[in-house]
Every structure is written in C-alpha cells, then in structure tokens.
C-alpha cells in the first residue's frame, strides 16, 4: 500500500500511482456497519489490475468510490483518502471534507458499471451521439468530436453500429458502447465492474482483446470480478476483497489454487476450477423411470418477432426495420419429462430466452403448439399456466418488483396454495437459496448474486412441474452456484422437469442429463455430457 504515500512528496517516484485509495472505513448513511474497512488499492499508469471478491464483498462499492460515482458525503461516509493523478483528497467524514466533482473525476477515471445500460443517457438516438454525449457537455467542437467518435468506434469494433439506436444493441455491443462512453474522453484509468458477466465465449474474447488494446495504448485498466476469467491471469496485481476487507494482494502467480489466498466463493474459469472449487459434480443420476407423458412438449414451434418494434418512441422515429420477421425459432420439437434436466446452449442472441418465454405463454408461437402436461396452452392466460411452469428471467431485476425479500417470494403464492402453506413454502425457498436472514431487506439493495438467488426462490416456492431457467449462473459467485445446483437437483428429484438455457457449457455438462444446442433457430441434440 505503500507507493501512494510517495505522491504526497515533491519528488515523483517512477511508479507513482495514477489512482489510489486508502480506505479506513466506508459506511453508507443508511447502513449499520462499514461496507469497506482497511482497504488500500494502488493503480500504476498503464497497468492491469484485478479486484476480486465474492458477491457482497464490497467490490462494487469500491469500484464506485474509485470512479467518483459515489462521492464521499453523498451516500456514505468515508474515512481515508482518494488519490487521482497526484492529487490526494483526505476524508474524515466531517463537514470539512473535500468535495469531488464527478465530471472532473469522470474525465480521469472511466467507469463501466455491472449494468452497462445504466451509462446511457437514454436521450440520444444513435450510438455515435451517445458516444459524443460527454464531449458535447465538455463543449468540444464538432470536428474533433467526430474524429473522437470514429477513433473510439474503431477501437471498440462498433464502426458499423454508429447509426443504430443504442436500445437495439446486443448485450455484448451494449457493453462495448458503455466502455466507449467511458474511454472517449481519454481517461488514464478505466474501471469495469463484472464486464464478463453474461457474455458468451466470443463476446468475452472480443472484450479481452479490447482490454489488451487499451492497456497497450497506456490506459490503466481495473477489473472488478467475482470470477477469475482467463484474461485476469494477465493482470499485474490482484487485490482480494472479503467481507469488505482486503485479504490479499500480489501478482496472480502467487495466488494459485494451492495458495489458499482466494476465497472458495471466487470461481475460477481459467481451467483450474476443478482443482480448486469442486462445486459441481458431473450429473451421474439417470432421470429415473420416465413417466408416461412429458411435462412439457413443444411440437413444431416456430416464432419470429413482429417486424415493427413495440416501443412507441421507435415507432415515432419510423426507423427502417432491417429484418422483416426473421424467424428466431424454426420447427422446434422438444419433450421434457418429469425429473429430467435439459440444458439448451447457444451463443448470445441465438433465441434461447425466446424459447423459454414460450413455455408459459409470454410469447406465443407463430406456428406449432406448446403442451404442458399434455394440454395445449394456446389461449390460456400466462397467469394460469404459471401454476405449472416457473420461469426464471435472464435479468433478475426484471423479475423482482416487491418491497421486501419475503413479499417478493410471497407474491401470488398465497393465491396458489393458501396463506398458511405460502408462508412455510416461502421460508423453505428462501432457506434453500441461503437468504433466510434477508427476508426483511429490499430486493434492490441485495448484491447481484443474491438478487439472482431471490428470483430463483420466487420460482422454487411455487414448486412448478416445469422449471425454466434463463442463464441461471450469470452473476452467481461460487457459493451461489452451489446453492443453484443443489436447488435444481432437488427440484428435479422431486419430479420437476427442468430446462435451463446457458452459454456456460461447463455448467450445462455438470448439471444436465441432456444438452441441446439452439442453432439458427433449430434445436439440435448436442453431445451427451461425460459419464452419462
């Protein structure tokens, strides 16, 4: 921790950090205990740093503090210092604390939060204008702005999307646009929170190449993550956070699986996972004696989105629609039996979520039928089908809408099973996902991993005959993944037919009895998992 003190002196050491933080305590105004305690981080110019921590370890808070998105005094109290480009600001939580100008800070430190859509201004109609938003506010003249937009778009591989509506980008493109918005003013530091979540292998490779490129150009990159993805092995320094404290720091080589320095909840996706966190076992259980009929059956289902987008804003702009009802699903046949776990894999944008939304009728096929327990669900309201089909949405925030964790699980449950049983079921479901103690909390204040598990609990509590899970592993740390795995297995053992879509082939192999691939709108059998 150390080098940062050097910045206070006149002599400039070679390795002077471009960004540093020495946090004795950081407490949110409405919190009881400090979220961060004794955390010291330094970032050298042009370096690559990873801050690793399980869900709830305080790393997003640290990221926001480093990025000026959480100015001390605004939402919480900081005791310690923040140092940027040689200027150190000391805070003690009193009235005399310096104030951070987020705009000035933002020009020095770019930040990409977990949800990249949060960066967007929402009032700009093209990717180019969205990129230029910060430059417009800084008063840059148009010629330089155009040059900056083109340079950044080239760097990000967004050159052909410049005239697109930001709301219509894919997940990977949106992530790159958010990075573009952060780096376009040319900040010496870029901080990214969980940039790899929900990216498929191709998207992750593109992002890794972009990060290497930025570092080569002299930008210091800081990645906050709860998983060790292969790119992070290239980092110069890892800082490990646990329960708001810094428990280790040093080069990745010193923190190998045998060192014991990484908490087990931090998943390793770098090929060393099996040696360190044997969370998942390859599924050895046969789906037992298959009962006579499938719990869920799709017969010749085809689907294409209507040619016009639903948003009135877009309709108002009358944009040309490039793909006129391109078929997302084509003649899909699928039968899932009680007790069976089926995984559907495919790259981002293959139509996996579209497929799942047909199971309960949120989307209706343009051809073919969907049968639950042998009965066609065409024309049946979604709310009725929901008694038999539980759907875990891809974005937990799309699924959570109540004021407390308990109310969230209870929603609609009392109408399904009666008030008394509902309370018992809700309690059991929260316990199954490790959230029994969080019952009175607000869902929006939970860490991302807990939000995902809460969304899962809302589905499990209903004990549906068909369990449809959309990318259930995204945002889960190692502990969360173990809870998910146990919950899915026990639901299947209790007779639920489980369909999970995921781009994590490793998880699919470990958890499923059967793996199918969605490719070009068609559902094809993939190879069987080993040992099955």
């Amino acid at each position: 921790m150390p080098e940062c003190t050097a910045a206070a002196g006149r002599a400039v050491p070679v390795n002077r950090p471009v960004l540093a933080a020495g946090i004795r305590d950081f407490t949110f105004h409405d919190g009881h205990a400090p979220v961060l305690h004794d955390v010291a981080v330094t970032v050298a110019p042009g370096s690559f740093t990873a801050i690793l921590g399980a869900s709830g370890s305080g790393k997003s808070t640290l990221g926001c503090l480093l990025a000026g998105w959480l100015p001390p005094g605004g939402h919480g109290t900081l005791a310690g210092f923040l140092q940027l480009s040689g200027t150190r600001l000391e805070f003690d939580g009193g009235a005399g604390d310096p104030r951070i100008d987020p705009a000035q800070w933002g020009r020095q430190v770019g930040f990409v939060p977990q949800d990249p859509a949060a960066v967007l201004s929402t009032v700009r109609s093209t990717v180019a204008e969205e990129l230029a938003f910060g430059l417009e506010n800084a008063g840059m003249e148009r010629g330089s702005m155009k040059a900056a937009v083109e340079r950044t778009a080239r760097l990000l591989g967004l050159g052909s999307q410049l005239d697109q509506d930001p709301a219509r980008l894919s997940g990977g493109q949106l992530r790159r646009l958010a990075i573009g918005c952060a780096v376009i003013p040319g900040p010496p530091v870029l901080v990214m929170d969980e940039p790899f979540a929900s990216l498929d292998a191709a998207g992750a490779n593109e992002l890794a190449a972009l990060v290497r490129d930025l570092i080569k150009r002299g930008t210091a990159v800081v990645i906050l993550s709860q998983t060790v993805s292969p790119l992070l092995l290239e980092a110069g320094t890892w800082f490990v956070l646990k329960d708001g404290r810094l428990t280790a720091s040093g080069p990745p080589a010193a923190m190998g699986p045998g060192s014991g320095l990484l908490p087990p909840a931090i998943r390793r996706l770098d090929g060393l996972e099996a040696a360190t966190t044997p969370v998942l076992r390859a599924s050895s259980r046969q789906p037992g004696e298959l009962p006579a009929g499938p719990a869920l059956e799709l017969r010749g289902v085809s689907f294409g989105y209507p040619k016009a987008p639903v948003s009135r804003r877009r309709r108002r702009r009358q944009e040309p629609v490039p793909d006129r009802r391109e078929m997302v699903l084509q003649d899909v046949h699928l039968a899932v039996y009680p007790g069976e776990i089926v995984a559907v894999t495919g790259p981002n944008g293959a139509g996996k979520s579209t497929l799942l939304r047909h199971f309960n009728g949120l989307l209706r096929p343009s051809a073919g039928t969907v049968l639950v327990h042998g009965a066609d669900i065409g024309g049946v309201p979604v709310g009725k089908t929901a008694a038999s089909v539980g759907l875990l949405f891809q974005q937990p925030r799309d699924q959570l809408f109540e004021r407390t964790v308990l109310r969230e699980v209870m929603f609609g449950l009392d109408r399904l099973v009666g008030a008394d049983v509902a309370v018992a079921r809700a309690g059991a479901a929260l316990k199954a996902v490790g959230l029994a103690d969080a019952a009175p909390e607000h869902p929006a204040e939970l860490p991302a991993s807990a939000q995902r598990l809460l969304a899962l609990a809302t589905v499990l509590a209903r004990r549906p005959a068909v369990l449809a899970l959309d990318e259930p592993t995204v945002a889960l740390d190692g502990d969360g993944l173990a809870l998910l795995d146990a919950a899915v297995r026990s639901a299947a053992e209790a007779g639920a037919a489980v369909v999970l879509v995921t781009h994590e082939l490793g998880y699919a192999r470990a958890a499923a009895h059967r793996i199918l691939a969605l490719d070009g709108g068609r559902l094809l059998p993939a190879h069987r998992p080993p040992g099955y």
Partner: protein
Amino acid sequence: MTASPAGAAPAPARRERLNPLTLLAAAAATAVITTAAGSWALSLAVVAACLGLSAAGGTAGRVLPAAAAVLIPFGLSLLVLHGLFFPEGRTVLAEWGPARVTAEGLDFAGQRIVQLAAVVLALLLFSFSVSIPDLVAALSARGVQGRFAFVLASTLTLLPAIADRARRIRQAQEARGLVVSRSLLARIGAFRLQAVPLVLSLIEDAGTRAAALEARGLSNPGPRTSYREVADSRLQRTVRTVLMLAALAAVVLRVVAPGA
C-alpha cells in the same frame, strides 16, 4: 451523420431537411392564426390539411386517437354549453324550460369546435412528426441549457420508457400467477399492483443514471456543443420569420378589429 427520419418512411429525404424549429413555427403559427381568425372556412381548411398531412406522413394512426381523446369531451361540453344556453340565440329550434337549442348557438359551438380541432391537430401533427433528437439538438444549438434540453428530451421519451417498464413488471407478475383478463376492471386492478413497483423502479433507475450523467458532465456550467447536425437554410429561417410575423399580425388584427 445520418439523422433518423423525422416523419414518414415514404418521404424521409424530404422530411429530414426540415428543421424542427421550422415545423414548430409552422404549427404554432397555424394555431395562433386559426384562433385569431375564427373563420369556419380557414379552420376547416386547416383541419383538412392536417388530416391529409398526417395520412401522408403515416402518423394518422397516432394523431387521430390522441385528437379524439382531447376533442370529444371538449366538443361535447362546447355543444352543450353553447347549443343550449346561447344568450344571443334567436332562432329557437327546441326548448326545455330555460334550455333552448338555437341555430346561432349551434353555429357558434360548431365554429369553436372546428377552431379547437384545427389547433389540436396542428400541434399533435407537429409532436408526432418532429424528430426529438433534432429538436433537442436545435434547441441546444440556440443556447438552451443542457439540463433543460435533457429534461425536455427525457419528458418526450418518458412515456414509452414507462410503458416498457410496466410491461416487464406485468410479465414478471403474470409469470407468477397474475391473471390479467381483457376487461377494463381487471386491467385497472392489475395496474394497481404494478404502480408501486413501477414508481420504485423508476426512482431507483433515476438514482443510478444520475451518477452516470454527472460523471459524463451533464452539469457542466460551460458552453456545450452538439454532435448532431440539424439541417437549416436561409429559406427556412425566412419562412420561420414570416410565420412568426404572420401570427403576430393575426393577433394584432384581431385586437384592433374585433369584428373582423
């Protein structure tokens, strides 16, 4: 830089060249002149022109329902008020106690309704045809504060965003057993369930976005520039000036010669 077409798909090139302020000036001048003139013929001509333009521009599907929502209640109340209780009415067509249907009253009510229709249609046609990004850029270029331009743009894009969020919440609730039937009562009941989560999620969203907007310099006090180029020309500037002068002249004429 390609601006997104402001209006109809069939004639995007022509529409794109119109500056949003020219459209705004045209709509405002039409509204003012029609109101000041108070002439059956002019009002009907404006109504017909607006209907024709909205049909040609492909916005009729949105302009007409919105216009109906405003005009039907107002029209009915004008009809009742002036049709039944017009003091200057002489030609009595029917009579119920103090209420008399007079030809003059009906004529006056009709005139007011057509006048109102002309104003409402002109303004609705403008708001459904203008490109919001162009309008915001045009206002910014004229020194309108960044914050104000942002608030204006957010307001104009707010409804679709709210509708989208409400749809997602409804889907989440349906996936957990909420049955929404087609009846109005059921829909109102379902909306009651969605209202609180909707407001809370919008507030939460605003909190996150505020941090992002601050970091991107929305509050910068200095001058701002605009990336988007908005088409403008000497001709359009002249047209705008002429429209404004014509509107002013119409008001002055109305005041000076009330009987005109």
